[in-house]
């Protein structure tokens, strides 16, 4: 990805180092950033945020992204590549929370500090976990929709990939919210593997057997929008919510197609994850866990998400992390 020539880094680091003589740290840390894929805009946002955070603290980033989305063997070999290049710290989103534990162990064995972002790794030695949990995302956005429905009506859940932690947890959040609204009936809960086309077809099929559907809880934005396409195609109306707070979802919220999206706030996660890694290297305090509450984007607050990511700036550490 974008990375200045090594000698430039070395020179600027030495220069900054001499200026900062006597301070507790030297600038110019190299941070390796691992994300899951190049397809999901969520991770593009994380990458942009890590770049902005690193730049603001005079560090640099190197990105590792599997070419085959969410590929376990590819991320594993990228970890090996990264270790040979000896980054100062790693900001790590595992493609799989269980399968990548050996990868975290390898980074630990190489004595490289790891900050875990977004998906919580099931094992390994981690400086900190930075993320929003999927359960509260599901719960938050589902509550939002069920309230709008006045606690009455029929609802469908569209799940992500079965077995993927994010889907299991989001759906658990949906179910918890449904339990709070006994007037709402869950008609069906079907997987569409986080894919827009599958969600469209699943919704088309479900509309055949259910003449009255009032709400759709989808485990990500593309599926929510696929379901909305199916509804529009059949001239039917229902409230729909997704999760990701993606740019497309924000536009759909603006035009009233989508009610809301649970926003894991990828930008803040990227910022705070990178800052945590750099702070750790500079011997500043970093909490073991930084879990943000779920953020729901809807027609009242979508405007703040319309600023292009590369023009945003990271929040201040002190504003996000309350000691």
């Amino acid at each position, binding site marked *: 990805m974008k990375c200045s020539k090594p000698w430039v880094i070395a020179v600027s680091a030495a220069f900054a180092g001499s200026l900062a003589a006597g301070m507790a740290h030297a600038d110019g840390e190299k941070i390796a950033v691992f994300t899951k894929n*190049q*397809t*999901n*805009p969520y*991770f*593009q946002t994380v990458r942009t945020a890590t770049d902005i955070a690193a730049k603001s603290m005079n560090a640099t980033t190197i990105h590792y992204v599997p*070419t*085959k*989305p969410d590929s376990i063997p590819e991320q594993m070999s990228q970890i090996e590549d990264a270790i040979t290049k000896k980054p100062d710290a790693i900001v790590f989103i595992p493609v799989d929370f269980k399968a990548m534990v050996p990868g975290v162990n390898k980074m630990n064995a190489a004595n490289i500090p790891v900050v875990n972002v977004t998906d919580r790794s099931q094992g390994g030695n981690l400086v900190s976990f930075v993320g929003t949990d999927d359960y509260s995302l599901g719960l938050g956005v589902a509550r939002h929709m069920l309230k709008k429905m006045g606690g009455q009506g029929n609802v469908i859940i569209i799940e992500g990939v*079965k077995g993927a932690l994010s889907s299991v947890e989001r759906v658990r959040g949906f179910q918890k919210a449904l339990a709070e609204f006994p007037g709402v009936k869950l*008609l*069906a*809960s*079907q*997987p569409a*593997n986080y*894919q*827009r*086309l*599958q969600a*469209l*077809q*699943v919704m*088309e*099929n*479900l509309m*055949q*057997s259910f003449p009255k559907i009032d709400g759709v809880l989808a485990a990500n934005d*593309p599926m929510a*929008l*696929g379901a909305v*396409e199916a509804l529009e*195609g059949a001239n039917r109306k229902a409230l729909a919510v997704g999760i990701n707070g*993606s*740019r*497309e979802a924000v*536009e759909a919220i603006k035009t009233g197609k989508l009610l809301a999206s649970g926003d894991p706030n990828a930008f803040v996660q990227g910022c705070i994850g990178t800052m945590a890694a750099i702070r750790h290297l500079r011997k500043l305090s970093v909490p073991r866990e930084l879990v943000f509450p779920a953020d729901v984007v809807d027609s009242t607050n979508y405007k703040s998400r319309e600023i292009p990511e590369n023009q945003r700036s990271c929040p201040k550490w002190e504003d996000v992390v309350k000691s």
Partner: protein
Amino acid sequence: MSGRLSRRAAASADVVALGYRVLVLVVLVAGLAFANDAFLTQSNLLNVLRQASLVFLIASGLTLVILTAGLDLSVGANVGLSACIAATVMKATGSVALAFLAGFGVGAVIGLGNGLMVTFMRLPPFIATYGTMWMLTGVTYWFMGGQTIHGFSPGFRSLGSGYLFGLPVPIYLMFAFLFAGGAFTRYSVLGQEVYAIGANAEAARLSGVPVRTRLVMVYILSGAMAGIAALVYVARLNSAEADIGEALTLPALAAVLIGGTSLFGGVGSLSGTLVGALILTLVLNGMNLLTINANWQPFITGVIVLLSVWIDMVTRQRAEARA
């Protein structure tokens, strides 16, 4: 394989094989009609046909390739790139005609590349198109940069979600290509040459068939069909994203195999592929209607593929024994 069969024995085996499939289809339809009231309604049957038409468009080109004992593993990735480029052209120019040319053209050029690799570079079709798949995936991710293109004009969208005389437009496309393709394979000299190459390429060459040219032709046709399918997908989903084609190759291949086209070449038909696409679609539709969790859909697909190929082998061996 079937080169050794007498023409009549082969033809009767074909009829028997297609008969089995139609039987499976009828049993599926009867079972679902019995199990769920919503199944055998006009709206659900149109729904199933529309969903099957997307699979069929891709699978029809693939059928031609497989008839020559070839393989095209790049069809899904081809749909991905063609869709993203066509969507970009559509957004940039607002012209449906140019978008159509772009989608169709990109698909055909990719097919040409495959054809040249298979003939002039003498790469095995599996390897050539497998490599193409990876390259296309990479180019598509680079091209899209994690973004989604969405929101198209109603005129363009009618290609995927419109109706004509009460029937969804993709269904017309499916039958148009079924009849055109059927006439081409059954009655044209070119079509007969496709079968001849698949049955025995060397014998076809000796009897004057320009094997290389015909092979390049079928790969171009397969690519072009993927390009056309891409346009229908974009029009249907009202969006294009880099992973749009990711989950399409294997279902298309399953439709061809369930439809009775042999991977060894020379045996099979487009009508078989249509039946295959319908069976595949009915499995998901049925599970959704019966609200059985559709996670078992891949398993059932696998069982059907194995059973149908096995039944083919047995019926062909019997026909051979009788001949």
